[in-house]
C-alpha cells in the first residue's frame, strides 16, 4: 500500500479521533518558567496548568465534499484502469520481465489502485529533492513531469531560499557548516565515516562512550545507550524487553517503528485509543484481572508504548495520568520521544520535564537524534540495569553497525549546546525561541480560522485540509510562494483527514513566520480552508514579543 508518511495505519485499523472540542484539560505541573497559564481547578493539592489541546470536528458539508472527492477520484480511477486494460490509455508503470510473466505477480495490482490512480496524480508534492542543508531556508530542485507524474525531469534550475516548514529541524541545529562545527570536521578527519563492525565485536569507539555518558547526563538518568538508526532503536530493542506471555499496550497512533518492534517481540498487542487514559485503564484492568486469553495465566509483564509528541496530531502524551495508571497496575512505560526531546520542556529535556516529573518515573526513555539534534540515530536511557541488559541483548548491539563517528560528534556538540556546556546560553535561547515561535504560529493560525490539531506547546502543527484536491493545490501554491510544506493524506492519516503539517523551528525568524502566515491567510481564502467555527480570541500580548536573532 502507499504509505507516503506517518505510521498510523500499521496498527491494522483506522483510528477514530477522540474529539476534544472542549479542549482544555488540566493536569499537574511544576512551577516552571515557561508555561504561565497555571490555574486552579478545584483540586487544591495539584498545581494545574491549562493545556489547550484541541481536535475540532469538521463541519458536515466538508466531510460530505471530502468523501465525494474520493468517490469521484475512485470512479475515474476505475475508468482509467479500464482504458489501460484495453490499451486505449498508455500505462506508464514498470512491468514485469518477459521471462517471468508466468510467475505469481510480485504484488497485487489491486493493492496499487490507490497509488496508481490517486497518489500518482499528486505525487509531485512528496519526495521533493533539495540541494542545501535543511535549515530555515532551503533550495528545492525544480522538476517537471511530462507524463502526469509518472516520471520527473529536472530542469536544472534551483528554487532558492524556500522557507522550510517541513523538516524536523526544531532547534535549527541542522545547518550548513560553520565554525561551531569544527569538532565534527576534526572527528571526520581522524575517524572517517564508517565503523565496519558491531558494538559487540570491534565497533565500540571512545566517541560512543563519550556520547552515551553525555546523553545520560542530559536526560538526568543513570545510563544510556545509543544506536545507529532511530527507526531501528524501536524495532530492534522492544523485542529484547518483552516476548511471549507479555502484553504490549500501544497507542493507536504510534509510529510504525514501535508497531514493528512490538510485532517482532512476539508479545500480545492491544491498542488503546489515542491519548485516552480511560481506554488504557480499561485494558490494563482487564489484563491484570483476566490474564492471558485461553491459558488464563497471568501476564508476565505489561509494557505501555506511547510517544511524547505525536507527529501527525501534534498532541502531547498525557504523561501524569499514564504514570499514575502504570504505578497502580504495575505496568512498565516506554516513551518514544522522537519529536519531543529537545523540543519540549523548559530546557528541552522532553515530556518528563514538560510535566515536571522525575525521568526515572518512566521505565524506558527512547528518543532519536534526527530531529532536534540535526543528526541521526537513537538512544535508550533509563536505569543502569535496563541499559546493561540492552548492551548484552539488544539486537542492534550484536548485529548492526554502530554509529558513524562524525554523526556522534554532531550529537555531542548539540547536547553540549543545549546543556550550556559550551559556556553560552545559546542552546537555552533556541529552546525558548522554539516555544515562542510555536505558540505564536499556532495562535495566529487559530485566529485566522483554520482547524489545527494538537497541543499549543507542540512544535508539530497539523492544519486540516480534508479534501484530496485541496492537498495538491495547497502544496503546489505554497511552493509557488516559495514555502516548502509537508502534506499528508491517507493512509498516514484517516481517509477524510488529510492535512498539512508544519514543523516550527527555533531558526525561523518572526519575519519568516509572518511571510508564511500571510501566505496561509491568502491560501485559506482562496481554497476555503478556514473551517473552524470557534470564536477567535485575540491575544495581542503574543505579538509584542520581539524575536531575537540567533547568532550564527
Amino acid at each position: 500500500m502507499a504509505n507516503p508518511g506517518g505510521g498510523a495505519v500499521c496498527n491494522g485499523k483506522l483510528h477514530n479521533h477522540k474529539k476534544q472540542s472542549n479542549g482544555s484539560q488540566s493536569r499537574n505541573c511544576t512551577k516552571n518558567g515557561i508555561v504561565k497559564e497555571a490555574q486552579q481547578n478545584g483540586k487544591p493539592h495539584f498545581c494545574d496548568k491549562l493545556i489547550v489541546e484541541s481536535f475540532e470536528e469538521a463541519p458536515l458539508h466538508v466531510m460530505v465534499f471530502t468523501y465525494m472527492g474520493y468517490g469521484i477520484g475512485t470512479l475515474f480511477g476505475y475508468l482509467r484502469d479500464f482504458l489501460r486494460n484495453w490499451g486505449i490509455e498508455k500505462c506508464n508503470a514498470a512491468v514485469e520481465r518477459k521471462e517471468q510473466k508466468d510467475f505469481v505477480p510480485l504484488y497485487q495490482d489491486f493493492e496499487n489502485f490507490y497509488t496508481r490512480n490517486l497518489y500518482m496524480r499528486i505525487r509531485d508534492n512528496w519526495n521533493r529533492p533539495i540541494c542545501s542543508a535543511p535549515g530555515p531556508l532551503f533550495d528545492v530542485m525544480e522538476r517537471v513531469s511530462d507524463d502526469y507524474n509518472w516520471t520527473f525531469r529536472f530542469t536544472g534550475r534551483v528554487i532558492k531560499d524556500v522557507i522550510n516548514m517541513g523538516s524536523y529541524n526544531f532547534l535549527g541545529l541542522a545547518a550548513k557548516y560553520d565554525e561551531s562545527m569544527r569538532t565534527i570536521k576534526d572527528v571526520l578527519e581522524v575517524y572517517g565515516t564508517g565503523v565496519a563492525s558491531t558494538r559487540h565485536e570491534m565497533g565500540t569507539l571512545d566517541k560512543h562512550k563519550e556520547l552515551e555518558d553525555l546523553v545520560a547526563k542530559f536526560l538526568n538518568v543513570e545510563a544510556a545507550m545509543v544506536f545507529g538508526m532511530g527507526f531501528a532503536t524501536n524495532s530492534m530493542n522492544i523485542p529484547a524487553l518483552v516476548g511471549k506471555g507479555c502484553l504490549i499496550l500501544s497507542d493507536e497512533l504510534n509510529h510504525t517503528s514501535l508497531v514493528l518492534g512490538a510485532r517482532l517481540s512476539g508479545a500480545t498487542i492491544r491498542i488503546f485509543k489515542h491519548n485516552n487514559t480511560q481506554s488504557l485503564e480499561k485494558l490494563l484492568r482487564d489484563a491484570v484481572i483476566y490474564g492471558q486469553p485461553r491459558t488464563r495465566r497471568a501476564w508476565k509483564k505489561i509494557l505501555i508504548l506511547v510517544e511524547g509528541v505525536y507527529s501527525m496530531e501534534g498532541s502531547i502524551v498525557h504523561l501524569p495520568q499514564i504514570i499514575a495508571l502504570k504505578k497502580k497496575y504495575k505496568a512498565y512505560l516506554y516513551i518514544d520521544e522522537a519529536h519531543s526531546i529537545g523540543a519540549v520542556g523548559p530546557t528541552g529535556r522532553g515530556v518528563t520535564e514538560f510535566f515536571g516529573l522525575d525521568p526515572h518515573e518512566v521505565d524506558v526513555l527512547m528518543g532519536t537524534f534526527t530531529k532536534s539534534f540535526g543528526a541521526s540515530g537513537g538512544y535508550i536511557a533509563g536505569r543502569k540495569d535496563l541499559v546493561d541488559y540492552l548492551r548484552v541483548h539488544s539486537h542492534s548491539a550484536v548485529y548492526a553497525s554502530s554509529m558513524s563517528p562524525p554523526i556522534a560528534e554532531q550529537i555531542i556538540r548539540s547536547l553540549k549546546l543545549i546543556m550550556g556546556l559550551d559556556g553560552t546560553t545559546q542552546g537555552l535561547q533556541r529552546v525558548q525561541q522554539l516555544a515562542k515561535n510555536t505558540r505564536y504560529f499556532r495562535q495566529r493560525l487559530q485566529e485566522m480560522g483554520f482547524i489545527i490539531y494538537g497541543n499549543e506547546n507542540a512544535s508539530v502543527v497539523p492544519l486540516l485540509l480534508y479534501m484530496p484536491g485541496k492537498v495538491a493545490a495547497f502544496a503546489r501554491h505554497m511552493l509557488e510562494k516559495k514555502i516548502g510544506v509537508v502534506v499528508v493524506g491517507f493512509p498516514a492519516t484517516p481517509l477524510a483527514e488529510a492535512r498539512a503539517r508544519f514543523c516550527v523551528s527555533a531558526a525561523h525568524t518572526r519575519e519568516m513566520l509572518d511571510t508564511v502566515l500571510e501566505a496561509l491567510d491568502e491560501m485559506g481564502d482562496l481554497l476555503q480552508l478556514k473551517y473552524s467555527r470557534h470564536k477567535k480570541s485575540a491575544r495581542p500580548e503574543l505579538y509584542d514579543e520581539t524575536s531575537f536573532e540567533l547568532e550564527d
Partner: protein
Amino acid sequence: MATATEQWVLVEMVQALYEAPAYHLILEGILILWIIRLLFSKTYKLQERSDLTVKEKEELIEEWQPEPLVPPVPKDHPALNYNIVSGPPSHKTVVNGKECINFASFNFLGLLDNPRVKAAALASLKKYGVGTCGPRGFYGTFDVHLDLEERLAKFMKTEEAIIYSYGFATIASAIPAYSKRGDIVFVDRAACFAIQKGLQASRSDIKLFKHNDMADLERLLKEQEIEDQKNPRKARVTRRFIVVEGLYMNTGTICPLPELVKLKYKYKARIFLEESLSFGVLGEHGRGVTEHYGINIDDIDLISANMENALASIGGFCCGRSFVIDHQRLSGQGYCFSASLPPLLAAAAIEALNIMEENPGIFAVLKEKCGQIHKALQGISGLKVVGESLSPAFHLQLEESTGSREQDVRLLQEIVDQCMNRSIALTQARYLEKEEKCLPPPSIRVVVTVEQTEEELERAASTIKEVAQAVLL
C-alpha cells in the same frame, strides 16, 4: 348407539368443568402453565455466573506481581565489557589502549580512512551540515541521495537502486515489502539475523533448507509443487521466494547461484540475494556473486547489500529492476518511515564507489590475501577453518567441542585475548543465542583487508597458531 355414548361423555366432561370448584380450575391452570414452562425452559442450569466483585478485582490487581522489566545482568558478563577502540577502527587500531593490527572490522578495501573518502565527506559536511531532519518523502531527499542511487544502479548494471539509512534495516525492510502473510519463503538455514528479522516481520511461511544444499531446497520446492497442485486456486496467489546470501556471514561460504537460478525458473520462485559480504569483494569489478559466477543480474529479482563493509560508510541499498525496486519506495518501512541517510555518509559512499571503479585490481589483491591467510591457517591442531578461501571473512571453530557452548566460548575468548596481547585484534562472531533460528557454533571471525601486508598476514597466522596451541593443548 356408540355415537350417543360418546356424546354423553363429552357433555359430562363439559358439565364436570362447570361444576368443578374455582380453586381446582386455577390449580389446573397453574399446572398447565408449569408444564409449558418446563417444556420450553432448559432442562439444566448453566454454570453460575461468575462475575468478580469489585473487591475481588481490586484484590487481584493488588496481588499481581509482574516479572522485572529486565532480569539482572551479571556484572562480569563479557558483553558488558566491550572492546573500546580509540581512534579509527582501521588497519592499525588502538583497542583497549593497545595498538593492534585489525583483523576484526569489515573494512575489506581499506576505505575507512581513505583520504579521498574523507575529503568527499568533508565537502558534503560543508555544504549540507550533518542531519537530514526528515524522511525521504518530506524534504529528506537530497541531490546526493539521488546521485548515489544512480551510481549504485550503474555500478551494479541494474535499472534502479534504493538506499536505506542503515545496513541492517535494508534486507529486513525489503523482504516484508513483498512477502506477505500466506506467501512462502525458502531460506538457507545459515541466513543472517537481518534476514531472519525480515522474514519474521513478513509473517510468511518459512521453509528452511540445509545450508547450501540444493537437493534439500529442491525437495522442499517439489513438496510445495505437489501441495500447489492440490489447491491451484491458492497457488495462483501464493508468491514464492528463495532468500540466500552471496557470501554467508555465519559460515563464510558462497552460495551456489547457478543452481539457484535454475531452480528459480523451474519452480517459479523469485530470488532475493543478500550481498553484504560479497559486494565490493567478489567478481572482477567487485559487483558481487553474480559477477563471480557470470550470471545475468536480471535473473536475480532483488539484490541487497550494506554500505558498511566494503564501502566503509553507513547504510544499505537494494537494486534490481524498477518493477521490483520502485515498490519499496512506498512499502519499504525502513525507507518510508526513517530519516534519510546523512548526506556526508552518502557522499563518502559515492567516493568509495569511485575508488572501486578506478582500481579494479583491488579485488584481485584482496582475493590473493584471503587465499594466503586461509592457507596459512590450515592445520592448526584443535582449530578448523570454516569458509571459502576467497571469502574475506571466515571462521575458526574448535575442531572438537568441549560439549558445553560456554566452555567453547571461553576457550576461544582466551585465544582472542592472547592474540590481542600480541597485537593481533580479533573477535569472536557474536550471536544472540536465544534469538537465532539455527545458532552457529562459536567461532573466531578473521577479516582480511587489502591493507594487511603479506608479513602481517603471516604474523597473524603464526600468532594464532602458537596461541591456539598454548590454549588448546
